[in-house]
């Protein structure tokens, strides 16, 4: 596994780094070379390189072996499902997406971490991401208060606005805080083929446009469901606010974006941005590492990061799509202990700072509040500090895959122009209600938009 190239570090920082490594070596001595190999199933994401580097560091420091089985998004999910449903999982650590973790929790597939080690707990500086690492199997609710700790966050995937800071500076602009400003700036910078004003995902996938549209619907004062955090799954995707949000999304896509908005994937967005052809986009924070890599990017140092805009009177609401590390029940105890030892090492403040330096996106305040956040190359961390408390998850129920399939199709068809915004919202609302009703939730939906 390859460690990403690092920028020049001042000598004081070198000394600091050496002391960190020394401290880590000392702290890891308790489980040095004493654990079984850990087989990790993980997806191919923009933050993979950082995670692979930190896994290498763990091997170097402890002698314990970590193997990464890297897959595309859908492939990783399928392998995880197959593993936990088999007699014995071939994976000891599952890197689970923040959209699909409920099905792992509700299915009873994960070992409570305190069952492996009663002393284990999340480090106090690790972000809790809405209580998603905890689950109460009795009440079937997510949350720290009554839940058992099932997972450790491994990546803080929230959406950020990536914009061309250099062009903004030329024009004397500040990062946009409203959709109106964003649209106006995108139009001003739009020069088709050479520079697109904005591009966002609208291609249909497992979870793609649903996640990217979430900050829009929330930012206009709407929501997919009335109050999913409180377990209220009354469908509100067909509200007036949602219509305004989707109209804005479609208008930006069709008027100030590339000509294929309904087919854009995350890879396309990164490609357009690093080749200097895109002024704004929305990407998971972890994609920052590719912006300043001189081997991949023509815009080194030129991309700025900000929390997503919102309409006046409503808060910015980045979509929470973090990743969680969970240990399957169906593996031998020694494997469980080995996987937990890695997670424990990973969440420590010192490791998290190292993780940031290696191109990963840390999950601990220790990294975001450390000196490294002030370095120019880590400027995304400032945006993360602002955006993290505002981020929200889309749902916490195991029917997430079915819900996403409906919204992916409806939103994609609206952007493709196959159906109108109103038709898309009404049909999605009806289908969402149907799935939730069949699954036994007390649900309903707003009257159809006219």
């Amino acid at each position, binding site marked *: 596994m390859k460690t990403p190239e690092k920028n020049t570090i001042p000598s004081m920082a070198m000394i600091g780094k050496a002391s960190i490594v020394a401290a880590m070596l000392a702290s890891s001595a308790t489980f040095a070379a004493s654990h079984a190999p850990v087989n990790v199933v993980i997806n191919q994401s923009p933050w993979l390189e950082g995670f692979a580097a930190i896994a290498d560091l763990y091997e170097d420091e402890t002698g314990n072996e970590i193997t990464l089985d890297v897959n595309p998004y859908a492939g990783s999910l399928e392998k995880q499902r197959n593993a936990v449903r088999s007699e014995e999982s071939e994976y000891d650590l599952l890197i689970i997406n923040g959209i699909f973790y409920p099905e792992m929790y509700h299915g009873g597939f994960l070992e409570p971490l305190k069952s492996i080690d009663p002393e284990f707990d999340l480090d106090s500086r690790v972000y809790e991401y809405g209580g998603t690492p905890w689950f109460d199997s009795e009440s079937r609710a997510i949350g720290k208060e009554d839940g058992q700790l099932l997972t450790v966050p491994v990546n803080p995937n929230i959406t950020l606005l990536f914009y061309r800071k250099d062009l903004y500076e030329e024009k004397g602009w500040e990062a946009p805080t409203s959709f109106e400003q964003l649209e106006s700036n995108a139009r001003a910078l739009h020069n088709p083929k050479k520079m697109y004003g904005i591009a966002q995902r609208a291609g249909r996938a497992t979870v793609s446009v649903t996640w990217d549209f979430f900050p829009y619907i929330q930012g206009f004062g709407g929501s997919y469901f009335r109050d999913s955090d409180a377990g209220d799954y009354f469908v509100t995707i067909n509200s007036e606010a949602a219509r305004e949000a989707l109209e804005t999304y479609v208008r930006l896509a069709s008027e100030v974006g*590339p000509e294929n908005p309904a*087919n854009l994937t995350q890879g396309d967005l990164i490609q357009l941005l690093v080749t200097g052809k895109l002024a704004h986009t929305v990407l998971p924070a972890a994609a920052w590492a590719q912006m300043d890599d001189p081997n991949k990017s023509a815009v080194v140092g030129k991309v700025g990061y900000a929390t997503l805009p919102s309409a006046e009177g409503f808060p910015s609401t980045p979509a929470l799509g973090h990743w969680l590390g969970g240990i399957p029940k169906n593996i031998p105890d020694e494997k469980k202990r080995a996987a937990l030892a890695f997670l424990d090492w990973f969440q420590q403040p010192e490791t998290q700072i190292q993780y940031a330096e290696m191109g990963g996106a840390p999950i601990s305040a220790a990294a975001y509040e450390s000196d490294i956040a002030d370095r120019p190359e880590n400027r995304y961390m400032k945006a993360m500090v602002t955006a993290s408390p505002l981020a929200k998850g889309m749902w916490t129920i195991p029917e997430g895959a079915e819900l996403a399939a409906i919204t992916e199709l409806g939103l994609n068809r609206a952007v493709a122009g196959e159906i109108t915004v109103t038709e898309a919202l009404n049909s999605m609302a009806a289908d969402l209600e149907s799935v939730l009703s069949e699954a036994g939730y007390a649900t309903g939906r707003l009257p159809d938009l006219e």
Partner: protein
Amino acid sequence: MPHFSPLGKYLSLLPALLVFALLALLPVINLLITSFHEVSWQAGTKQMEWVGLDNYADIPADPLFKAGVINTAIVVIFATSAQVIIGLALALGCSALGKKGRFYRPLIILPLLIPGIVIGAIWRLMYNSEFGVFNLILEAVGLTGHDWLGSSSTALASVIVVDIWHWTPFAFLLLLAAVESLPRDVSEAAKIDGATTWQEFRYVTLPLLYPAIFMTFLFRAVMASKIFDEVFLLTSGGPGTSTEVVSFTIFQRYFLQDNPGYGSALSVSIIFVVSVIIVIALNAGRSRELAQS
């Protein structure tokens, strides 16, 4: 020669029947059973709840499935027809060249040997709106480039072109074997009688090739109805539902959405429909042969 009793003959078939039952029937029966259930997981254990025909009742209202059926039918008709026509033309051409034609055969067969994932990569690059070869050619002659896969109006046609490129060699191989096994004396008799090349083809070669053309069409139609990899690699069914095909719908419903009950119902329905079409087509073929004889 030794004679076997009728019972002995039937018994001798038994091992083959058992293997067939294990390999072909059992999985289909399992699929059928699953299609009447709702499958979920509780406390790490699979729960199967009997839902009768509910999964089947949901099929007609499935927007993806409806789009998938229409698009699959379009792919089957257009891709298969083009493959048979081009395959036949290539087979006749190669056969006419005699020994020289052997040089071209491996070249024609090449696309068939390329793995699907490589085909996806090749054509994704060629269709790329920024630097794809098609747009470079268009721009070189002063025309505007087009987003072939990203536009609803051209995405399905673009997928069909890839399928034609990929599978025409299959039709070519089957039809070449048929062309090369045609009796020479009939053609020679036609020539002696003064038939032109077109008349020889139209009234001698083509009628003799009908059974092979029919079987090639049928094989390819069945295979085309299962189209998946080109769609998965090039468009994922989009934009919108413009390239959604039945296999991709089943993949999404069964695997991505983890809905084995409904996914099984879709699968059983497709197996049933394809089987019916094959039986009808085979009977039509036999009726034609009987009418000719």
